[in-house]
């Protein structure tokens, strides 16, 4: 599972499920370790997505407010 393939939404949803499943406590220790590891990976993934955030604005007509530098027509 590479970072590029997973969106923030998916990662956050996955993290939420992982935490809930761990807290339910029905898993074997081994299973919960696997899940814990996955959860920590998701935490790092989400954090990096949030920290790396850069404003990305596109305009359907190419028209943008003058103070927005990163313009891109699509």
């Amino acid at each position, binding site marked *: 599972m590479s970072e590029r393939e997973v*969106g*923030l*939404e998916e990662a*956050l*949803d996955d*993290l*939420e499920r*992982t*935490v809930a499943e*761990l*807290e339910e*406590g029905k*898993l*074997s*220790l*081994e299973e*919960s*370790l696997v899940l*814990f*590891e996955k*959860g*920590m990976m998701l*935490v790092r993934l*989400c*954090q990096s*997505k*949030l920290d*790396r*955030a*850069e*404003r*990305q*604005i*596109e*305009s*359907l*007509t190419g*028209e*943008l*407010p003058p103070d*927005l530098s990163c313009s891109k027509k*699509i």
Partner: protein
Amino acid sequence: MGITCRGSRLCGPAPALSIFISYALHREMVKYAAIPLDCALTQIFTVTELNERIRDRLENDPRLHDLWARGEVSNFVYHRSGHRYFTLKDRDSQLSCVLFRNQGYSIGFELRDGQNVLVFGDVGVYRPQGKVQLVARGIKLDEGLGFLHSQFEALKKKLDAEGLFAVERKRALPKYPSRIGIVTSPQGAALQDVLHIIGAYPVQIILSPAQVQGEGAEASIALAVRALSGRADVVIVCRGGGSAEDLWCFNSECVARAIFECDSPVISAIGHETDVTIADFVADVRAPTPTAAAKMAVPDMDELKSWIMQSEIRMVRALWSGLERKGERLEYLSRSISARKMYSLVAEARQRLDFLGECLGAAEEEKLKGLVSRLNLAEGRLAAVGPQATLSRGYAIARSGRGLLLRSEDAKPGDVVELILAKGRLLCRVLESEDTEEFH
């Protein structure tokens, strides 16, 4: 400067000054307490002279000529002389109006109380009564808002009947959108407000520029909404505050249908909180302002970051309570999981907790400290029950394809069993199986 005036009669056919004027003068005199006592030294007006002076002043002011005034007709009187008298009023004020007979032919409709009209004319003073009035030269029905309002009600009724406002079709907003479409003017303050709130949240913003007032605005907005089809997870249609006329394009049928047919949920934020348009009724969610719309569209970054931290803490806590459960300690032994992996995970969790402690407030930190010490305890216990410590004292784990060997009947002579030692493992064949007392 003061004005003194003398009148033999203050009412009747002779010119009179209204109470208002004398009251105002009285206040002036109180304010400028120095009233010249010697009347002979100052000019004394007759009421007529004073009214004439007021009239001259008003009628020579070009700003009070050739003007349009908007208001509601009341106290309408069609005098037998052929002149029409009425009062033009709005919520807070009123003004006398007269339409003289010779002007009255051209208006083309019957004046009635309660009509909203636009009056064209000049401000004048009716000298005999000292009355300021608007002398009308033309009057037309104010179709502006009254007419628009009836249009609004008719469209609202029609679209409601078609189910465009149905609560059942309102869609939930995505919790974490990755693409936000914004329909607004690129020059408007509304866009700036929305962008400010979205801030650093990692989302792709797709601006669909629209003309949000004036001729052609309706079609422009509808087109901009449709252009976002398939490109956004949530759409914000917004515009800053303006007059009712400015916002009117959001009350059009084509905008309503474009919003209705939009394939992603739409948040409307048009004008100020008190402005409600047809677009607001059709939208999945109505926000009072563009700022509020942006807050609905994206989660709060700080809350989100803190939620992620809390998730880490919850996972460590859950893992720890799992370690504590005795039943699972046995299960741990029964499966050959890597002890090293286990320790490194626990150590990592402890480090993360230390780090999180620095990030969170003092109260949270206390809770975390407790958690860290419990985790240390769990780690110690883990070491005690873990196979490594036991194996290094000369014990071995015996197991077959069916699982752990705990009793002699778990393996029959001839079976192949596995012995896990402190270092390495042995595959052995069972020669004999005996029921004996437990090993001491």
